[in-house]
C-alpha cells in the first residue's frame, strides 16, 4: 500500500502539480491520522482537476487490491469501522464515517474493577494505524474478542482442555438455547399460518446472550426486556405454554392475552416486561434495582446472597436514546445492582449501527459514566456466562452497575414483517457459521460432557415441549368480554362514581365488560 502512495507522489511530481497540493499530502501524512487509501478517498481531499482521472483510477486500483486481503478476526476493532468513502468529486454527498482517536491507555481509566483489564489486553495494544488493510468496503463485522483474563486465554473455545462448565450446566445451557430456537421457529410457522398477528420479533441467533445471563439468576432477580422478549421469558422460567398462549392471544397466556408478543410479564418469575418502545424498559429496570437497594438499606430486608440483581436487555439502537444515558448515570450514581446488557446485533430494523452511532463501541459508554464497560462475543454462551458471572457478583456485592456489550446477530429479520433486504449475505453467512447452539454442541462433544445421542434426545424433548405448547395454546379459550375492564385499574374504584351514586365498578354490567366507563 505504501508503495502505491509513493507511485502517486511520483506521478504528481512529474505532472508538476501545484506546490500546495504536495504540501497538503505531506501535512496529512505526518499527522498520522490517515494513510494512503484514506487520504485518497477522504472527501476533504480534492486533487487539482488535471489529476481527476489519475486520482480516480488509482482509487479504483487500491480498492480492488485491498479486496483480496484476508479479514482477520483477532485485530482490535477500531480500524474495522472505517468505511471506504468514494472521493467527493465523483460521487454524491456521503456522510463520512467516524474518525477515531487512539485508544487511551488503561491508566487513564477510572476505578480498579477487574473489567478494566479486559480491554487493555493485547488485542488493543496491537492497533497499528499505519496498517493498510482496513479501509475498503468490507462486510460490517463487529468486534470479536476474547474476554477472559490473560491466564485463561481461549479456554472456552479450545478443545482438549479442562471444560469451563460441568456437565449439568452444559446440558442446561444447551437445552435452554434449543428451547429458545425451537420456540421461535415455531412462532414463525404459527404466524404464517395466521395464529398470531401484529408485530412478532424473533430472537434466532441471539440465544447465547439470554441463556448466558439469565441462567445465572435466582428466582428473585429481575429481568427487563424489549419487544424481542420471548426467549428472555423462556429463559427466566415462564412456561412455554403460557408464552405461546399469550402469543395466540388466549386467556391462558401469561398476561391473559392482553399483552401480546411485545409485552411478556410474569410476576411469579420476576419478568418485568416486554416493552414496545425502545429504551422504555431501562428506567423500569433501574427502578427495580433501586427497589432492591431500598429493600436492603431502608427496609433492612437483606438476603444472605446479597442484593437482588436486575438485568436490562436492549439493543444497539437503544444506545443512542436518552433514557439509556440517563439511566447509566443514575445507576452508577447510586450504585444500583443492575446490569445493562446490550444485544448489539448491528441492525436496528434497517439502520446499521455504524450509520447511526458516532462512536459505535458501546462498551466505551460505561467508563464514561464511571462503570465498567465490557465487550464480549455474544455468540459464545460460555464467554457470555463468564462475563455475566462477574457482573452479577459485582452487583450483588453492591459495587454497582456494569455495561456489557454482547456482539451478537439475529438470523432472521427485525420482525416477521421485515423483508431483510439490506443485510449482506456474507455478513449473515459469517454469523451463521458462529451459531451459538452449534458451537456449544461441538464444545460439549469435544470435551466429552455428553454424547451426540443425549443431545439429540434433548432436541427431541424440546420439540415435544414446543408442540405441546402449541396444542395448549390452540385449545385455550379466547378472552371473554368480561375480561375487558378488569385490569384497567388495580383498584377499580378508579372508574369513578356514576350518576346513580354507585361506583361504576359495582355496576353489574362492569363484570360483563359492557359497562359504560
Amino acid at each position: 500500500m505504501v508503495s502505491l502512495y509513493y507511485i502517486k507522489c511520483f506521478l504528481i511530481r512529474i505532472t508538476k502539480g501545484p506546490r500546495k497540493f504536495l504540501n497538503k499530502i505531506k501535512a496529512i501524512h505526518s499527522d498520522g491520522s490517515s494513510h494512503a487509501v484514506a487520504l485518497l478517498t477522504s472527501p476533504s481531499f480534492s486533487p487539482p482537476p488535471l489529476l481527476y482521472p489519475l486520482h480516480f483510477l488509482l482509487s479504483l486500483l487500491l480498492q480492488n487490491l485491498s479486496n483480496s486481503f484476508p479479514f482477520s478476526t483477532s485485530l482490535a476493532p477500531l480500524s474495522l469501522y472505517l468505511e471506504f468513502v468514494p472521493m467527493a468529486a465523483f460521487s454524491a454527498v456521503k456522510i463520512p464515517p467516524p474518525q477515531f482517536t487512539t485508544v487511551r491507555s488503561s491508566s487513564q481509566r477510572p476505578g480498579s474493577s477487574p473489567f478494566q483489564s479486559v480491554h487493555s489486553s493485547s488485542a488493543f495494544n496491537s492497533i497499528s494505524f499505519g496498517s493498510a488493510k482496513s479501509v475498503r468496503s468490507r462486510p460490517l463485522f463487529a468486534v470479536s474478542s476474547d474476554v477472559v483474563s490473560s491466564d485463561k486465554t481461549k479456554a472456552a473455545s479450545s478443545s482438549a482442555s479442562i471444560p469451563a462448565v460441568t456437565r449439568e450446566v452444559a446440558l442446561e445451557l444447551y437445552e435452554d438455547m434449543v428451547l429458545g430456537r425451537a420456540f421461535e421457529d415455531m412462532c414463525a410457522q404459527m404466524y404464517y399460518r395466521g395464529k398470531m398477528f401484529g408485530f412478532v420479533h424473533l430472537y434466532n441467533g441471539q440465544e447465547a446472550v439470554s441463556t448466558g445471563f439469565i441462567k445465572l439468576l435466582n428466582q428473585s432477580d429481575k429481568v427487563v426486556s424489549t419487544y424481542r422478549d420471548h426467549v428472555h421469558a423462556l429463559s427466566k422460567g415462564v412456561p412455554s405454554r403460557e408464552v405461546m398462549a399469550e402469543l395466540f392471544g388466549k386467556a391462558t397466556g401469561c398476561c391473559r392475552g392482553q399483552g401480546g408478543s411485545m409485552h411478556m410479564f410474569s410476576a411469579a418469575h420476576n419478568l418485568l416486561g416486554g416493552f414496545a418502545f425502545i429504551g422504555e424498559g431501562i428506567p423500569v429496570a433501574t427502578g427495580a434495582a433501586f427497589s432492591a437497594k431500598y429493600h436492603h438499606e431502608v427496609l433492612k430486608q437483606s438476603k444472605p446472597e446479597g442484593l437482588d440483581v436486575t438485568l436490562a436487555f436492549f439493543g444497539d439502537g437503544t444506545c443512542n436514546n436518552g433514557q439509556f444515558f440517563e439511566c447509566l448515570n443514575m445507576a452508577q450514581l447510586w450504585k444500583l445492582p443492575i446490569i445493562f446488557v446490550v444485544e448489539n446485533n448491528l441492525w436496528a430494523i434497517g439502520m446499521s449501527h455504524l450509520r447511526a452511532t458516532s462512536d459505535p463501541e458501546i462498551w466505551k459508554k460505561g467508563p464514561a459514566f464511571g462503570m465498567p464497560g465490557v465487550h464480549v462475543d455474544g455468540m459464545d454462551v460460555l464467554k457470555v456466562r463468564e462475563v455475566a458471572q462477574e457482573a452479577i457478583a459485582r452487583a450483588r456485592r453492591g459495587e454497582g452497575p456494569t455495561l456489557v456489550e454482547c456482539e451478537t446477530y439475529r438470523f432472521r429479520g427485525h420482525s416477521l414483517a421485515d423483508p431483510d433486504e439490506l443485510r449482506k449475505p456474507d455478513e449473515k453467512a459469517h454469523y451463521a457459521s458462529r451459531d451459538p447452539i452449534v458451537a456449544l454442541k461441538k464444545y460439549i462433544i469435544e470435551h466429552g460432557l455428553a454424547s451426540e445421542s443425549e443431545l439429540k434426545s434433548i432436541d427431541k424433548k424440546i420439540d415435544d415441549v414446543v408442540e405441546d405448547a402449541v396444542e395448549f395454546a390452540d385449545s385455550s379459550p379466547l378472552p371473554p368480554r368480561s375480561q375487558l375492564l378488569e385490569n384497567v385499574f388495580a383498584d377499580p374504584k378508579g372508574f369513578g362514581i356514576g350518576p346513580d351514586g354507585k361506583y361504576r365498578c359495582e355496576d353489574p354490567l362492569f363484570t360483563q365488560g359492557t359497562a359504560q366507563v
Partner: protein
Amino acid sequence: MASLQMAALLSAPSTPVASDRVRVGSLRLAARNGSALVVRSEAKVSGGVSARGANLITHAVAEKAAAASSTDSKPGHELLLFEALREGLDEEMERDPTVCVMGEDVGHYGGSYKVTKGLATKYGDLRVLDTPIAENSFTGMGIGSAMTGLRPVVEGMNMGFLLLAYNQISNNCGMLHYTSGGQFKIPIVIRGPGGVGRQLGAEHSQRLESYFQSIPGLQMVACSTPYNAKGLMKAAIRSENPVVLFEHVLLYNLKERIPDEEYVLSLEEAEKVRPGEHVTILTYSRMRYHVMQAAKTLVNKGYDPEVIDIRSLKPFDLYTIGNSIKKTHRVLIVEECMRTGGIGASLRSAIIDNFWDYLDAPILCLSSQDVPTPYAGTLENWTVVQPEQIVAAVEQLCK
C-alpha cells in the same frame, strides 16, 4: 336524597360516626369574610347519610374515634397548603416504610416549593431521593420501583416538566397493569405544581390535566385547599392506582385550619363548596377562588350559585355533579385549562351524555384562551378566566 345530603353537609354533628364509612370533608365559607382567599372550615363528618351507603367497598382509612369533635374552641391547627401537603406526606411515610419520594431538589433543598422540607433529614437520602434532571428516566424509575414493592411519590418540579416523562406516564403508568394482565400494580403518585402563576412565562404555566386525561388507567385529582390537599395526598399514596395530583403554584400559601385527627379523602368524590339554587358552577384548583369571588358579587346581585369543586378530574364524580344539575338545571364550567380538549370539554360532554334532560340552558364553559401564556401581566390576566367573566356568564345563563 339530595336535600338530605345537603342537610348533612351543612350540619355539624357532634356524635362520632361508625368508622367504616368514608369521611367526606366539606367546608363552609365564612360568609362575608373580608379576604376572599382565606378559607375557614370546620371539621365535619358526614357518615350515614351518604347515598352510596352499604355497598361501597370502603377504602383502608385509618380512623380514630372522633373524640375531639366536641371541642368548642377552634379545633385543629392552622397551616399553609404546602405544609398540609408535607404533613400528609410525612404521615404516610411514617406509617408505611415503602413510601418514598423522588424528584429534583426534593431532598437537601427541601423541594422548590418546600413541600418536602425536612423530610430528607428525617427519613434519609434514599427515601427522599434527589434525582438528576432526567424526568423521563426517574419517572420510569418510580414505575419500576412501584412494580417491585415500593410506593413512590414522584415530584415534577413544575408540572410542565412532566411532559418529558409523558412516555413513561402514558405507556407504563397507565397501561402496564393492563398489559401485564393485572400482575403488576403501579401505586405511584405523580405530583407537582402547574397552572398559570404570576408572569412565569409560557412554559412554566402549563396545565397538563388536559394532556393526561386520555391516558387509560390513570387517575387525576386536583387539590385546592389545605384540607383537601392533605386528604388527597394521603388518599393518593394509599391508592393502588397510579394517581396524578395537580397542585397549583399560586395556592401554596393558602392558610386554613385543618383537623388534628387523621383523615383521608376519597379520590373520586367532588366537593360542594357553596350550596345554591340557581346555577351549578363546576370548577377546580385555582379557579375555585375566582368563582368564589364572583359568587360574592352574584349574591349581591341576587343570584344563588351552587359551587362545586370537582376535585377528581378523572374520573368525574357524576353523582354530586348530577344531583346539583337536577336541582339547578343550569351549568357553568370554569376552568384554567385551554379551551380545546380541556377538562371542561370532557366534562361538558359527560354532562350532556348523562343529564341532557335536566338542562334548561346550554352548558357554558369558561376556559383559558388557546394562547401560550404571555409574560406580560396584563396579557396573562386576559388569558385566564377572571371573576367578571364568571359573573357575566351566570347572568347570561340565568336570563
